[in-house]
């Protein structure tokens, strides 16, 4: 059964202009997201996962440019239209994002409810009373009592602030929600609560979700599919059942998985020696080759394509095709 397509990204390249030259933060990235589906984008810092999210809500910093590529939300192209058009038709109401660390960026002198209501007033043009009513409803949707409307950020714990930030992103009923590391600053106990909330929201609101994380274990909690990025490129993309159930097919995913500390079982967690590539001069051939345990001659010279190892599982590695 094929579901309606919420988002499609085609051959996206986003470069930053720096003193050292171009930094290829996102390089030839293509994927799609169905309605009601959740996709986890997994990678280390500097893999391009946050830049990808910022591109999709047209919030890139000034020194970044979209070198090529297209993105479609329910069939409409969103990268070539004017920023005004994007803000009027797409941001908040079709796609919105919970930024990394946003819970620490709440305005300390405004009631959190008024902050949740803001997009309704300034972007939605609703009268204040109506905005207040809708914001209160959304605050309840994220599992907080309605009285929290009148609280100030310093009166809330980290977990509560994170719920408020999620409420802000949801207040105009978007179809697509991008969550950038929404739990990385929280204790595991609170993290588990927020993850359950996100699952409830996906079920209840039929959201399509892009969940950006560095943690494969968390990804497995939420995502139907997993997209592993390294050095601005997709290394592996497949269903969670395939990538984690049958086991990763890309050496990077494999190493990432074995780096996770486990509560049970024998052996120490693994690590990946070296550091992520400098994207102003990425290594030739496969970008992971300097850290890859299985590297051979071809990897150093030729960049592998994304091999289709079956209709739904893509792997960018010379071990998987020819």
């Amino acid at each position, binding site marked *: 059964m094929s579901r309606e397509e919420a988002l499609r990204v085609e051959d996206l390249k986003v470069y930053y202009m720096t003193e050292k030259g171009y930094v290829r933060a996102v390089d030839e990235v293509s994927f799609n997201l169905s309605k009601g589906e959740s996709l986890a984008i997994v990678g280390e810092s500097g893999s391009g996962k946050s830049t990808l999210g910022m591109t999709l809500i047209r919030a890139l910093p000034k020194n970044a440019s979209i070198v090529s590529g297209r993105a479609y939300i329910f069939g409409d192209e969103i990268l070539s239209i004017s920023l005004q058009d994007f803000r009027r038709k797409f941001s908040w109401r079709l796609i919105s994002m919970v930024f990394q660390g946003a819970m620490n960026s709440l305005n300390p002198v405004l009631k959190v409810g008024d902050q949740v209501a803001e997009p309704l007033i300034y972007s939605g043009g609703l009268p204040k009373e109506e905005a207040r009513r809708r914001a209160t409803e959304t605050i309840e949707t994220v599992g907080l009592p309605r009285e929290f409307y009148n609280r100030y950020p310093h009166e809330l714990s980290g977990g509560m602030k994170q719920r408020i930030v999620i409420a802000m992103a949801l207040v105009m009923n978007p179809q697509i929600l991008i969550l950038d590391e929404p739990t990385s600053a929280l204790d595991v*106990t609170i993290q588990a609560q927020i993850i359950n909330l996100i699952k409830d929201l996906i079920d209840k609101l039929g959201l399509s979700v892009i969940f950006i994380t560095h943690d494969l*274990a968390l990804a497995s909690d939420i995502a139907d599919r997993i997209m592993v990025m390294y050095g601005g490129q997709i290394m592996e993309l497949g269903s*969670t059942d395939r990538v984690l159930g049958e086991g990763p097919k890309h050496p990077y995913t494999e190493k990432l998985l074995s780096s996770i500390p486990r509560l049970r079982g024998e052996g120490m967690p693994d*690590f990946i020696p070296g550091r992520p590539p400098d994207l102003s001069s990425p290594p030739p051939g496969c970008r992971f080759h300097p850290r890859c345990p299985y590297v051979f001659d071809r990897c150093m010279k030729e960049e592998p394509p994304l091999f289709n190892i079956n209709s739904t599982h893509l792997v960018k590695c010379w071990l998987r095709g020819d």
Partner: protein
Amino acid sequence: MEEVIRLENVKKYYEVRRGFLGSQSLKALDGVSLNIKKKETLAVVGESGCGKSTLGRVSLRLLDATDGRVFFKGQDITMLSEKELRDKSFRKKMQIVFQDPYSSLNPFMRIGNIISEPLEIHGYAREETREAVLKALEDVKLVPPEDFLNRYPHELSGGQRQRVNIARALVLGPEYIVADEPVSMIDASSRAEILLLLKSIRDSREMGVMYITHDIATARYVSEKIAVMYMGEVAETGPSSSVLRNPIHPYTILLLNSVPEPNPANRRTRRLVIKGEPPSPINPPSGCKFHTRCPIATERCRTERPSLVEYAPGQLVACHRAEEVIKGSVTVA
């Protein structure tokens, strides 16, 4: 093995002003006892605000305890003045590795100077200093060390910066190190590397380590002992293998349940969570402080504070219902 650090019934209270009502005390630590031997790591695990960082700082005499005693290699250092701590070399022997490798290194100082600063403060000669710095860099595997001496922090990755942090703590030859969340801000792919490094340095230099973390899963790889803290008290402590394999305190059981494991079946279920958040430490719950979030709390838990009792070899638990949990006549999760 020789004991490096011992805390006896340590308390740390802060006075908090509450408007016109006068002041109330916040009990950051409320009667914690522990010891760490040479070549041993104690992992102190708990949520933010449980007192684990305060505990680390009290053990180093960076904070003064309100009550209780701190011993370093058998000597009571609770009441020593700052001058005595320094003159009798206690400061040199006790060091800390901070959490944030980005803000704990001066961006204007070269790596060599960052690591040699403690030696200069303690009046080491130049030749001695250079040798100790090179040795510390080698110990943390920033090799060849000469390549790193003149670099600045921004030229290094997060993992490399944390090694510099560790090298700075090592350079005075400490016998006790507090590592406060040393890997929580580092990419998952390098965490194990740093933790293994700490462990091997601990063994070669015969140090005692307090590893403070919110991540109970990493604790099992580096620590022989674990202390699980909740609101300034130890809820459960014992050998890491027993506490992780057979946890008894409901808080430990639920904490272990909160840790995500990579499994595609996860998304079809909801995680079992500890309801709510830790209550205000200024006005803590009566009886067992965990009773407001505990799924098996009884009337007794609401009124009577449980004390630590040994239920298995070395495994101490502060829970009125521990025996029932062990027998399986009551289940937490």
